[in-house]
């Protein structure tokens, strides 16, 4: 992993960081790199209510806020910003206004690296819209001051267009804490975590590859169709 001055994690939902980025975050904070998490929403519209369910549509935001704080504790994140957008509405907001919120954080913490979703390749409309706002905000900076941007992408066929991810972090050495961070988002991950117990116990190679390696695409500009 490259040495960083400050890392900005920018995702729209609490738990977006859990499966694909938590290990990377843990490795940065272990190395003493300050990490800021700009989380767009509280995942108010999540369908998972715990298994068996303990949340409802109205209690879910508070529950997820606390889960997010706990996950940040596990990952060593000391600077958590909740931007106050609402789940499933980001794509309908004014793009410049969303970018303004993220730009304010970028200006304040002056990150050398931003991690977000690759707009157009992240499946969930909030992922694409938030990723696009992050890119829009970063592009306001002159190229020489602009932080690197690592993007998560997982839409079908994304590898055909983007190529293979150019950044691969092996996070097996911090897997225990990564799993703890995932579990911290209990209302959302309880059911998945229960299903993993067998894979973990059997040291299932495919599963370990998936959870133990975190991949990113360095943002290189908009993709033209």
């Amino acid at each position, binding site marked *: 992993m490259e040495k960083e001055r400050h890392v900005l994690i920018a995702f729209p939902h609490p738990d977006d960081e859990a499966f694909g980025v938590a290990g990377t975050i843990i490795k940065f904070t272990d190395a003493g790199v300050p990490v800021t998490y700009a989380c767009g929403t509280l995942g108010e*519209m*999540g*369908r*998972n*209510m*715990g*298994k*068996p*369910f303990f949340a*409802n*549509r*109205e*209690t879910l*935001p508070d529950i997820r806020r606390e889960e997010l704080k706990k996950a940040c504790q596990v990952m060593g994140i000391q600077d958590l910003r909740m931007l106050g957008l609402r789940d*499933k509405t980001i794509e309908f907001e004014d793009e410049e206004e969303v970018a303004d919120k993220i730009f304010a954080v970028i200006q304040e913490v002056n990150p050398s690296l931003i991690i977000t979703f690759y707009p157009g390749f992240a*499946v*969930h*409309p909030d992922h694409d819209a938030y990723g696009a706002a992050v890119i829009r905000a970063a592009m306001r900076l002159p190229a020489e001051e602009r932080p690197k941007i690592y993007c998560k992408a997982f*839409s*079908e066929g994304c590898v055909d267009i983007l190529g293979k991810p150019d950044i691969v972090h092996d996070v097996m050495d911090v897997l225990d804490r990564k799993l703890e961070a995932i579990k911290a988002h209990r209302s959302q991950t309880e*059911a998945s975590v229960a299903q993993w117990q067998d894979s973990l116990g059997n040291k299932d190679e495919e599963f370990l590859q998936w959870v133990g390696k975190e991949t990113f695409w360095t943002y290189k500009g908009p993709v033209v169709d």
Partner: protein
Amino acid sequence: MQAINKENLADIQKALESFRGEEVYLHLETTSGVYTAYRDKSQLTVGCYIRNGKIRFTTGKITGAGPYRVGLKMDLGWVYAEGLTDWEVDGEGRLLLAGHNAEGKLACAFELSRTPFN
């Protein structure tokens, strides 16, 4: 929340009627889950929701043998929800109904409140 059943249906009906005739706030939502089409191309990702719709209804009923349905008749139209499995009246006096699928995931929600939802 607890499961809606024959025993508590009358309580829910009573709670529903307590909102009748006055201006109340509606949260109505249905969702297949945003990854539905991503996981299975033959399926359509669908969802819609309205939050803090101001309504006034003249007749409101919960019906069905489980999962349950709710319909509200308004002066100029209807509100309807299907697939409801669980309910509660929360600490703020709001009637919360939800439909959870076999995996326990929320598939629809129908909620009434006398004050706006956050």
